[in-house]
């Protein structure tokens, strides 16, 4: 991001998303089949590949400040298949470790036709409530997922939003229905 609202940010951030397209390993599986074996087989491969590409693209693990993940399952799969590949220690824990993070990794998932774009949320990799780092990146693979494929995405940013100025939890006033009694009545 070079300028936003016509001004250069104090800390211009680079955002990247890396997507892998793979065949849905459960496409021929029986309904309600156990997902665990494929999760532990595929998750680590994806975690390593996507984390390495993110770090390479953004100039190293140390430059990454915020991260997120996502999956898009093709129309012949279950939404649970998308979740199965990203919501598992075999993927999430490894991405967190490889990117030197501590936070839970925020996510998006959906089932869609090829070319659907997905807004992937990112937040701070060690201090998730850091409001300046709440941001998103739009990710899209033009010809994927096919009906029997899954797109798995890891995303990261090297800094905050371009001009963060909405405070933080520490600077927020106390807001409850009681303090707002007048305007809500």
């Amino acid at each position: 991001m070079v300028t936003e609202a016509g001004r250069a940010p104090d800390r211009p951030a680079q955002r990247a998303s890396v997507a892998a397209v793979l065949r849905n390993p459960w496409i021929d599986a029986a309904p309600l089949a156990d997902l665990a074996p494929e999760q532990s087989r595929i998750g680590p491969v994806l975690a390593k590949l996507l984390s390495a590409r993110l770090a390479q693209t953004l100039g190293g693990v140390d430059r990454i400040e915020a991260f997120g993940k996502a999956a898009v399952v093709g129309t012949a799969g279950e939404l649970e298949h998308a979740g199965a590949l990203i919501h598992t220690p075999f993927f999430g824990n490894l991405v967190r470790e490889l990117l030197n993070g501590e936070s839970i990794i925020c996510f998006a998932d959906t089932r869609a036709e090829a070319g659907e774009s997905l807004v992937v949320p990112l937040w701070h990799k060690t201090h998730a409530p850091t409001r300046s780092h709440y941001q998103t990146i739009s990710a899209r693979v033009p010809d994927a997922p096919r009906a029997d494929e899954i797109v798995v995405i890891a995303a990261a940013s090297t800094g905050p939003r371009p001009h963060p100025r909405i405070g933080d939890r520490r600077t927020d006033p106390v807001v409850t229905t009681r303090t707002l009694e007048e305007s809500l009545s």
Partner: protein
Amino acid sequence: MNVRKMVTVVEEIRAEGGRPVSPPATVAVVAAVIENPWAGQGFVEDLAPGIEANASDIGALLAPAVLDALGAPAEAYGKAAVVGLNGEIEHGSALIHTLKFGDHFRKAANAGTLLPAVEKRGPAGVVFDIPLKHITDATIRSHHQSVEVRVADAPHPDEIIIGLAAAAQGRPQQRLAALSTEQ
């Protein structure tokens, strides 16, 4: 030239038609989202001063960046201009259809042929396909290909996306006979 942001897309195809592609087929795109130099000026008859002020700088910005993103020598290339809704397609064409723009890429890639191009106008998030052809002989059929790009929040009505695309090889699993074999 006021650049709002730069976007890089790298596609690495490892299988096509159910068969592995080795080494993976790689295509890279780098796009700059810039302010339309003629925004808010009504119909500008003479585009030459704006071309002079911007085209070379954009070419110099994008050419090394796309080759860097590709990470290999380019064998095919192409270019794009996508104009926001308040502008003319002529504005985008003005910036990319000049040697001042394209020669940066040709020189950096040791290329000689015309850069195939897409020019269009659309809203932010519009999808565009960049055509690519071989960098020294545009009749080499194996290298005719295209790459699809979308920048989620660009172009704004007064912006233009200018892009360059480079491929390290022809199409994955290309197997059409050479043009010279047809009568």
